[in-house]
């Protein structure tokens, strides 16, 4: 260490080194950021400039440059000419292009070959890889998906939209969130007309998905319905008639009491009457099903909470009562547990999605109740046989996308009958939304006929339904409700007090949001007879 370097020289060298490192890091970062920004315009420019887009669609990318026909265009001119001709006439006449089959949709999207779409999906149920691959192969449009944790969809999408990040072309949105997101989504009414969405027969229960304030913002993709599953053999043993299952909640409770703690399988294990869904996150839906048939509603027409009305309190008292015929750890049971218990043959009644029927009937390794159960729509209560529609997932086109029509076509593809059947048969848990899907023979082969739920599925939405309220504050309202319900179930609070407390929280939330200001739109009361 006996060098004689001038002091300033080595200091400069050191600082230079740091500066270089800093610039290197910063530079790569900036390049990375820019790289992403430049990607989108570049890809849209490479689309084969073949057909003209329908006049109805806005913001179509550089494809409108109807330049010299490329070789790719030549191959598809036959079909695309037909579809685009129809499209342009559609703008004029309104008869619309038919996209009844998957092939038609794929054809319509071929003209966008070379583009890229980004789709946000619900974390646990992304579209099948096979489905995405088929799309890419047939249309030449690449589809990139981003998974969002199911519990975080509301937060992440809100942050995404409010920050104008513009990451997504398509988003998977749960029904109750349309109120919050509508300002950031494209109204699909026009596109629906162009592409004859009316011809698609949606299951009754799902028709309201995506509708908000007169506009239509989503294509129903995954429809959820609750049904009551019951053990037919146990019903017979306690004196019931499997062909005429209990029709009201009180009947169900009576039968559950008869079943509870009895050794109905003859193997020494005590039966459980009814397994409830009481774990905190999402338990409000378990309450909602009762609220519907007890004749309750969320608000009165002036947005005053009606949840603590006599009907509401009665509904909660009934739900809490189920604990007495439930398993010891009722308070922490979630969805997955319900399936597990029913398939293991431990429970007499559960309230679950229709997909449980498939598992119970066809999963030979896990199900012990094959041929021993029945499905019915949820029982009637003091308020009639009103069903609750839990909402599901819809695909929405964002406002920030530069490829509205393409995104729309992709949404139609993912929701169309063939795709829905493929996914249902593969057991992804995505429930089809179109009547034709339920009538599809492949679907029925997997889901069965009669014993299972698809007939019920058709039936349920035909009467009155209680919907969720798609206002922006819904997540907050639901969270407050979940909390107090959970407290009521675990005995920390009495049902009436719990609901009163919820009503208070709701009033505060809505007040802060300005719902009680003069001139605010009224609430469309749902329990009018």
């Amino acid at each position: 260490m006996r060098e004689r370097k001038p002091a300033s020289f080595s200091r400069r060298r050191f600082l230079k080194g740091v500066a270089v490192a800093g610039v290197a890091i910063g530079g790569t970062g900036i390049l990375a950021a820019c790289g992403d920004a430049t990607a989108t315009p570049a890809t849209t420019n490479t689309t084969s400039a073949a057909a003209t887009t329908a006049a109805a669609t806005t913001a179509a990318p550089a494809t409108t440059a109807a330049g010299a026909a490329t070789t790719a265009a030549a191959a598809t001119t036959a079909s695309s000419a037909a579809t685009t001709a129809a499209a342009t006439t559609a703008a004029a006449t309104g008869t619309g292009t038919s996209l009844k089959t998957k092939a038609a949709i794929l054809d319509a999207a071929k003209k966008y070959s070379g583009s890229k779409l980004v789709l946000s999906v619900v974390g646990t149920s992304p579209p099948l890889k096979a489905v995405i691959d088929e799309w890419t192969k047939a249309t030449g449009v690449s589809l990139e998906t981003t998974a969002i944790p199911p519990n975080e969809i509301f937060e992440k999408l809100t942050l995404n939209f409010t920050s104008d990040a513009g990451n997504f072309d398509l988003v998977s949105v749960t029904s109750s969130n349309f109120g919050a997101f509508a300002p950031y989504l494209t109204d699909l009414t026009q596109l629906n007309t162009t592409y004859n969405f009316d011809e698609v027969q949606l299951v009754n229960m799902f028709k309201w998905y995506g509708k908000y304030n007169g506009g239509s913002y989503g294509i129903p993709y995954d429809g959820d319905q609750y049904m009551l599953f019951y053990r037919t053999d146990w019903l017979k043993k306690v004196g019931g008639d499997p062909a005429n299952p209990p029709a009201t909640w009180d009947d169900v409770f009576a039968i559950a009491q008869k079943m509870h703690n009895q050794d109905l399988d003859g193997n020494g294990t005590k039966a459980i009457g009814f397994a409830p869904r009481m774990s905190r996150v999402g338990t409000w839906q378990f309450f909602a099903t009762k609220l519907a048939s007890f004749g309750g509603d969320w608000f009165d027409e002036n947005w005053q909470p009606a949840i603590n009305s006599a009907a509401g309190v009665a509904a909660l008292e009934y739900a809490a009562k189920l604990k007495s015929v439930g398993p010891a750890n009722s308070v922490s049971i979630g969805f997955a547990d319900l399936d597990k218990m029913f398939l293991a043959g431990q429970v007499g009644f559960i309230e679950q999605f229709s997909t449980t029927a498939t598992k119970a009937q066809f999963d030979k390794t896990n199900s012990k109740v094959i041929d021993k159960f029945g499905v019915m729509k949820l029982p009637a209560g003091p308020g009639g046989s009103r069903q609750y529609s839990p909402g599901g997932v819809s695909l929405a086109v964002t406002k920030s996308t530069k490829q509205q029509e393409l995104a729309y076509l992709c949404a139609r593809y993912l929701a169309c009958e063939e795709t829905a059947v493929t996914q249902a048969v593969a057991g992804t848990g995505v429930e089809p939304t179109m009547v034709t899907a339920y009538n599809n023979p492949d679907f029925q082969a997997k889901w069965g006929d009669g014993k299972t739920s698809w007939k019920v599925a058709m039936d349920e939405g035909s009467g009155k339904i209680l919907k969720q309220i798609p206002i922006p504050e819904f997540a907050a309202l639901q969270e407050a409700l979940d909390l107090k319900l959970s407290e009521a179930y675990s005995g920390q609070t009495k049902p009436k007090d719990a609901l009163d407390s919820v009503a208070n929280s709701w009033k505060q939330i809505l007040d802060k949001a300005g719902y009680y200001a003069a001139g605010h739109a009224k609430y469309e009361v749902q329990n009018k007879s």
Partner: protein
Amino acid sequence: MALKLQEARPQEIRPSATVPKENRLGLTRGRWKRFGYNSLVYLGVLFFMAWTLIPLLWLIGTAFKLPRDYTADPPQIIPSEISFDGFTNAFGNFNAGNYLLNSILITAGSTVLAIVIGLLASYSFSRFKFRGSRAASLGLLALRMFPVVVLAIPLFIILKTLGLLNTLVGIILAMQLIQLPYVVWMMKGFFDDLPIELEEAGQVDGCTRLGAFRRIVLPLMAPGIVATSTFAAVLAWNEFFLPLLLTQTDKTQPVPLLVASFVDPAKGTLWAEISAVSVVSILPVLAFSLMMQRFLVRGLTGGAVKG
């Protein structure tokens, strides 16, 4: 003050002060008494190990389970039927490899940045006495008192303004918030440990302050730097909330977000996939820290004990 150069070397076997003399290794007096005592010690350690390792073994076991074995009775730590479905599903359908890559990039980038900035800063706090240095370092400590939740939204807005939302650079910068207080605090401790005489000796020999820094201080600080960077890296690797808010697409989402997206109260949580991804993501951290274990223990208390 005596030079404690031995502190800088990896841990050698020193007799433990609290262990009675006759129980230390190598002594032959009172062999049976020692045997009884040692057995008790081993028993205690065994219990502690069981407590520590059983949950870990459960995690590893779940990664190889079939869904029906999640709730088998009796619970199986080692699954009766080994299945790699969790792994294939996570890395196939859910593209876990991409998330791992993001995590690696984010962790490496933010750790390097934190160490560079932290080295300079902690050296300054340690060596230079200037107005406000005490306040500044206390302020840094106070930063750690803030729950991430409250800082998240302003951070979100700042990054949005800078255009760094959903970029690796943005997340790396955000991580500094979490890493820097620890890094500066730890390394300041190490610097405090290093007697100033060494640098002064170097300067007498003709090095500049920075030359002394580079040639004398840094090599001696090596174990401390390693310990600090391991700690900082683990912090960045495990961070969930900041990426949750500040990343939006698969381009930048790290592993904790993937794990969170496997949790679905409605359709059923994918336990095997969660465990599979966790197991794979623990491996690098584990390997690295096991290697550095000697340095780690020595390094982490270098400053604290003297403080």
